[in-house]
């Protein structure tokens, strides 16, 4: 059984008990425990079920590499799945539930999957679900939906809050073990500004467990903390290294001490001149049958639990090893009064000091032996052994309640690799380590990441510490600082005997054993799966990874990658470096989506742009429509009225009396300078330079591909200045488009542009009584003679400074009045007040759309979609034939653009008067190569017209303008076929009499 020892525990505080629940059962641990250590301390060996086969699983590691002990944590809006128990600090009231089982952890129906194991072999998704087709729907899909996925998805919105933080430092040290602390000290002593971050809650890494560095660690931490230019953060994990020294960090502020209202996680965005990765190494499991049974644990994790938390995973522990380091666990267990009945060492005659010490203390060592199998189901009860060269026939069985496995160490090279640093293979230690000659490069072409300590392959404690200090000094030197070779104890001579690479245990394990030997615990990938993939022709490690799912779980193969790679290269008869690793990608461990969103949620998700009249709209029952970052009134429903009814009322009132539109969001760009006219001639398809001051002209803007990108009215202010109106959505990108051409192509033209969009409120006064209202306010002559259609004038209206444009997007008599933004709200109020007895009603964007559609005016984004040229829309009148050039002119001459078979704009009227579905296609006889109905047109705008009391639409139709009166079929998604007649797109007041009065 696993249990808490009577004394000891470096990190726990026995005076502070903490109670928590696991699957509803109340258990107790101590402050300083992780959830994993507390569970083990409470004899909870079984902590979850595996993903595919629902095999019982226990804690296997003690840190971020843990593949099994994943928990559903918390409840309600604080619920979160897939949290690693090994990195979850225990707090009072913690609620954890195990995953992947039904109905309970102890009795699981899905475990029957094990019997169907052959069904789940490598590539099963690709192979099994192809035939028969019907089985997919009735058999495979329901099954996969029930079993796929780790943990549960949270149901509601996340109740926690998150934030982002920015930091700029000279040297970032990732990892606060002895190597990282030495690195930080060396760099800071040389005068660098240093940030040192540590993912766990304590400084020192594993040095306090494996070596005697306690006093040095305390001294270094105190010294660093006292230095002005050093920042130290615990619970802050390096997440990813990106181009030019950008590093993300994931700080867990409140996971260990939940507090409502305080940020839970913080995403750090760090810009570092130099990065020193002192991220240690991760021990590898050994591949023997039953290596996934609860109670089989990494040897290093076992001594972590004993030393740090005074938790003994077993009373009788057998060590299976291929190296000397595993013996540290033996000595540690013996020191704590625990039994070690046997060591199974794959090597013959291990002669290292550590093995000798174990032997001297009476431990039996079976050298040249292998674990042949593990007894027990929900926990280990014994281990079978056989000669290392054997196929698995057990020659002996030893009773035990825990198995420690030690397969050698793999440096954590992730942060060297994220951004392109290359790796080398160490034959003796069987691990990849950073190639110092090929680091990731910064903007100057110099390396900006180096590794220190075990991450650099210096696995021995003293050697690792020294390597860390050197890395810190080198980082400082890379910044041009002077850094002496760091002092500190010189490494002791190597006393460990060489490791023996063992990738399959025993070396000739039979099929039954290989198919019960786990490589990837979390994704349930077995040794036999990788071998099968190799037999089926998978030679690339990246392909094999995806085919078998090895290393694709939330732990990203921290335990499994090297073992899987070795098995693959063996099966391919290639060397490991020849086969190569899969790519290390950020983040190092999963980070919360909340931390990525940071503060950008709810009201702060994105900035909200308000027009000067925003508050009035809000106070007057507006129904908003988001338009980019703007909010625009969609309609103003009155009490008892639906939004649709409101829209129809607004349309009719504007046609019959007087409407008021907040048009402030329209883009307003001032284009000025001696070459402004010439510039606008290039920008627009028609001629703008011939426009007279005091006049307005509608224009179309295309990109170099010839496609229509924006439209609007240009007013010539004076000889050198034009005011360009763009669509609401176009203001910023059209301004950018202008600047692009001015700065990068015609830089010798004298033109200056200013985006004035937010400087002015713009109000459209629209309808038969529009002139009456303005005359009531007074101050200018609004007569048709003085201010004709498409004219503009400047002056005071009712005491407000205005510029009035007589332009119309509705077909009605219309004045668009611009006033300085600060006067907008007051001017609007005044118009509303004075217009009351003229029947004034404000109208929103939907009424605007209907009014323009009744007149057959196009709308950018409805009639255009980035593939439509002005010629498609019958806008030839707005395309100059005189100009030798404009943006898009040459493109519009390309054969595809002049093809007479391009779909052209027409009006559409349903036979029944119903409204056509938006985006519906008109069918044509026959079927295309994909067996889909042929089409001959589509609906681009469609509305119910309150004016005409029927549905009206515009659309693009093959040879449309030549087919007036023809009826087309538009199937809807509701099964109904709409029949519509091709008509002129101008539905209302074809002569334009109403706007021109």
């Amino acid at each position: 059984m696993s249990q808490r020892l009577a004394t000891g525990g470096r990190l726990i505080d026995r005076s502070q008990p903490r109670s928590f629940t696991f699957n509803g059962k109340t258990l107790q641990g101590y402050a300083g425990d992780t959830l994993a250590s507390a569970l083990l301390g409470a004899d909870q060996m079984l902590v979850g079920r595996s993903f595919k086969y629902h095999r019982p699983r226990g804690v296997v590691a003690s840190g971020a590499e843990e593949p099994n002990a994943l928990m559903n944590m918390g409840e309600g809006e604080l619920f979160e799945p897939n949290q690693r128990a090994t990195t979850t600090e225990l707090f009072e009231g913690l609620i954890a539930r195990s995953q992947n089982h039904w109905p309970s952890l102890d009795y699981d129906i899905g475990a029957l999957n094990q019997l169907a194991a052959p069904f789940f072999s490598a590539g099963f998704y690709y192979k099994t679900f192809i035939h028969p087709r019907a089985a997919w729907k009735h058999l495979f899909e329901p099954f996969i939906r029930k079993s796929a996925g780790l943990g549960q998805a949270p149901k509601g919105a996340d109740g926690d809050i998150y934030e982002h933080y920015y930091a700029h430092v000279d040297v970032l040290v990732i990892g606060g073990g002895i190597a990282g602390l030495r690195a930080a000290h060396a760099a800071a002593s040389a005068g660098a500004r240093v940030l040192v971050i540590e993912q766990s809650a304590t400084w020192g890494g594993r040095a306090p467990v494996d070596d005697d560095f306690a006093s040095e660690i305390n001294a270094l931490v105190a010294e660093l903390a006292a230095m002005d230019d050093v920042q130290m953060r615990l619970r802050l994990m390096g997440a990813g290294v990106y181009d030019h020294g950008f590093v993300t960090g994931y700080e867990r502020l409140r996971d260990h001490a939940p507090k409502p209202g305080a940020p839970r996680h913080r995403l750090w965005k760090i810009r570092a001149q130099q990065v020193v990765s002192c991220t240690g190494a991760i021990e590898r499991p050994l591949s023997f049958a039953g290596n996934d049974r609860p109670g089989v644990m990494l040897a290093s994790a076992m001594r972590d639990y004993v030393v740090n938390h005074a938790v003994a995973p077993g009373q009788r522990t057998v060590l299976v090893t291929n190296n000397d380091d595993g013996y540290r666990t033996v000595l540690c267990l013996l020191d704590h009064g625990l039994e070690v009945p046997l060591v199974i060492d794959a090597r013959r005659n291990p002669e290292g000091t550590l093995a000798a010490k174990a032997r001297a203390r009476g431990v039996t060592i079976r050298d040249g032996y292998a674990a042949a199998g593990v007894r027990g189901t929900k926990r280990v009860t014994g281990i079978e052994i056989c000669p290392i060269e054997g196929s698995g026939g057990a020659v002996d069985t030893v009773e035990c309640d825990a198995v420690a496995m030690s397969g050698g160490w793999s440096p954590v090279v992730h942060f060297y690799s994220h951004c392109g640093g290359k790796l080398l293979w160490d034959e003796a230690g069987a691990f990849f380590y950073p190639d110092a000659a090929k680091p990731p490069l910064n903007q100057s072409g110099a390396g900006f990441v180096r590794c220190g300590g075990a991450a650099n392959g210096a696995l021995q404690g003293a050697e690792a510490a020294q390597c860390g200090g050197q890395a810190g000094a080198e980082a400082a030197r890379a910044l041009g600082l002077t850094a002496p070779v760091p002092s500190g104890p010189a490494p002791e001579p190597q006393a460990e005997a060489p490791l023996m690479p063992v990738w399959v245990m025993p070396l000739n394990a039979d099929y039954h054993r290989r198919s019960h030997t786990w490589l990837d615990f979390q994704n349930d990938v077995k040794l036999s799966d990788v071998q099968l993939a190799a037999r089926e022709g998978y030679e690339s490690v990246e392909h094999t990874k995806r085919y078998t799912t090895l290393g694709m779980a939330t732990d990203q193969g921290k335990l499994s990658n090297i073992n899987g790679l070795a098995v693959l290269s063996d099966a391919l008869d290639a060397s490991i470096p020849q086969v190569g690793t899969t790519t290390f990608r950020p983040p190092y461990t999963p980070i919360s989506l909340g931390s990525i969103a940071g503060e950008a949620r709810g009201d702060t998700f994105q900035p909200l742009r308000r027009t000067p009249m925003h508050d009035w709209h809000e106070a007057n029952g507006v129904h908003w429509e988001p338009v980019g970052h703007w909010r625009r009134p969609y309609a103003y429903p009155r009490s008892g009225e639906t939004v649709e009814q409101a829209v129809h009322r607004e349309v009719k009132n504007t046609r019959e009396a007087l409407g008021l539109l907040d048009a402030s969001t329209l883009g307003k760009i001032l284009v000025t300078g001696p070459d402004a006219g010439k510039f606008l001639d290039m920008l627009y398809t028609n001629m703008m330079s011939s426009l007279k001051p005091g006049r307005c002209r509608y224009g179309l803007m295309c990109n170099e591909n010839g496609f229509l990108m924006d439209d609007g009215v240009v007013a010539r202010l004076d000889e050198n200045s034009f005011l360009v109106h763009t669509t609401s959505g176009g203001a910023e990108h059209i301004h950018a488009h202008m600047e692009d051409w001015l700065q990068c192509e015609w830089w010798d033209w004298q033109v200056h542009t200013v985006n004035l969009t937010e400087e002015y409120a713009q109000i459209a006064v629209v309808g038969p009584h529009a002139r009456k209202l303005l005359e009531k306010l007074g101050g200018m002559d609004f007569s048709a003679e003085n201010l004709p259609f498409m004219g503009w004038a400047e002056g005071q209206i009712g005491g407000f400074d205005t510029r009035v444009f007589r332009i119309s997007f509705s077909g009605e008599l219309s004045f668009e009045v611009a006033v300085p933004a600060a006067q907008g709200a007051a001017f609007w109020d005044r118009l509303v007040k004075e217009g009351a007895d003229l029947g004034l009603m404000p109208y929103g964007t939907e009424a605007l759309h209907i009014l323009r559609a009744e007149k057959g005016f196009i709308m950018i984004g409805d009639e255009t979609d980035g593939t439509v040229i002005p010629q498609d829309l019958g806008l030839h009148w707005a395309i100059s034939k005189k100009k030798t050039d404009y943006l898009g002119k040459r493109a519009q001459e390309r054969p595809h653009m002049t093809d007479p078979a391009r779909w052209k704009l027409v009006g559409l009227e349903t036979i029944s008067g119903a409204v056509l579905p938006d985006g519906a296609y008109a069918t044509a006889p026959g079927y295309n190569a994909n067996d889909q109905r042929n089409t001959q047109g589509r609906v681009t705008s469609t509305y119910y017209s309150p004016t005409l009391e029927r549905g009206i639409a515009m659309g693009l139709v093959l040879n449309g303008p030549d087919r007036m009166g023809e009826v087309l079929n538009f199937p809807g998604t509701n099964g109904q076929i709409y029949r519509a007649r091709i008509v002129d797109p101008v539905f209302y007041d074809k002569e334009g009499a109403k706007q021109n009065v």
Partner: protein
Amino acid sequence: MLILTCPNCGIACDETELTPGGVAHLERSGPGASDAEFEDYLFMRSNPKGVHFERWRHSSGCGKWFHAARDTATMQVFATYSAQVTGPTAEVLTAIRAKYPDYTLPEGLKEARP
């Protein structure tokens, strides 16, 4: 995330402050150009591994465009320089040749007129 120094305002910009504008030094082709020439101008891009001349706009800063000479494989930035030139300047080429001594401009690209 790249850092490029805007030659107009001197700020070392994070990539988030910038908007990319594709390959630099394209020669505009308009009316009168053949279909093939125009297609080259509109669509055909070389996408080299190594030295690349590109356009960037300091869009969340001074608003100005500039050019950058960058290594697409190593992310090294050889130089950032004025948008108002028709090709890389002599100084830019010197910076590139400090790393790649044998570097020559690809076909169709000429050094900026001084």
